[in-house]
């Protein structure tokens, strides 16, 4: 029998269900994200995405971030990391039958007003600066986490990758990139290997840098 460790992601879910607002908006996205609509489709993705955006819009970061950015200190604490991965109900909101090329996913994101502006926010607020102590060019973890969570519920919805510590990615890869392989890799690495975003998530999980958790609303 393994030694029982605190599961921060479970604790965040408990705290959410004890708070009326968080509980309400949590079940308001879990319902559409887990309701099968036909034999062919596991859910109505459009409704699931909309309810997810509403969850992150309406629920105070204290609760929503605690679930999305909960820390799972032990690398093999799968009960914790799997729960964190399940936060956005990936089977509906994230995974798809095929993995598109990231650049074509970016193109389809650009055709949607919400997705386009939120992706731009993410690239601007989570920009890496290795020489800065924070790892971020803008030195504001709160804005980076806000921009990242803003992508959830768009075509660019990111999630944690399995078997990888704090590495995130949208549902796409860089196969079939042709001449644009380098550009595609750069785009994908902004998610999977982003020092600023990783530090921001870690700082939130550790409860350090608590001063910035009242980020300004997105422009």
């Amino acid at each position: 029998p393994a030694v029982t460790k605190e599961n921060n992601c479970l604790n965040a879910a408990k705290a959410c269900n004890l708070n009326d607002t968080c509980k309400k908006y949590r079940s308001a996205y879990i319902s559409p994200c887990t309701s099968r609509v036909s034999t062919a489709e596991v859910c109505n993705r459009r409704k699931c995405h909309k309810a997810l955006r509403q969850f992150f819009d309406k629920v105070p970061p204290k609760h929503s971030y605690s679930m999305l950015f909960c820390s799972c200190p032990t690398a093999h604490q799968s009960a914790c990391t799997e729960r964190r991965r399940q936060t956005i109900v990936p089977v509906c909101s994230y995974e798809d039958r095929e993995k598109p090329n990231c650049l074509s996913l970016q193109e389809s994101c650009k055709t949607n007003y919400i997705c386009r502006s939120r992706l731009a926010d993410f690239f601007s607020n989570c920009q890496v600066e290795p020489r800065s102590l924070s790892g971020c060019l803008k030195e504001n973890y709160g804005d980076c986490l806000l921009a990242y969570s803003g992508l959830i519920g768009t075509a660019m919805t990111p999630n944690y990758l399995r078997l990888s510590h704090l590495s995130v990615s949208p549902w796409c890869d860089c196969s079939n990139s042709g001449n644009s392989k380098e550009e595609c890799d750069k785009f994908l690495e902004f998610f999977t290997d982003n020092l600023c975003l990783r530090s921001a998530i870690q700082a939130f999980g550790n409860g350090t840098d608590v001063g910035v958790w009242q980020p300004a609303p997105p422009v």
Partner: protein
Amino acid sequence: KPRRNQSHGCVLKQVHLNVTDLGLGYWTKEELIFRYCSGPCIDSETNYDKILNNLTHNKKLDQDKPARTCCRPIAFDDDLSFLDDNLVYHTLKKHSARKCGCV
């Protein structure tokens, strides 16, 4: 629509529970606030209830025992979702009271 009467005897109460305490067969470590209606409804009894009282007492209804005014939810709380130990989500509807009344 059921007849509702306000009564200060019948009130909304709450208790903090584990989802497993509900006995609905779910395996999870998640928790909830369960709200329920409790208290007497004597103040809001109607002639109908008084007649039923008298008729049962005088054995005019054979073996029948129709229910009297009762403290029940007249509105339910928002749905509750949780993730079980096998990483499956569940959503409970109409599981917890929001507003009580003597009906």
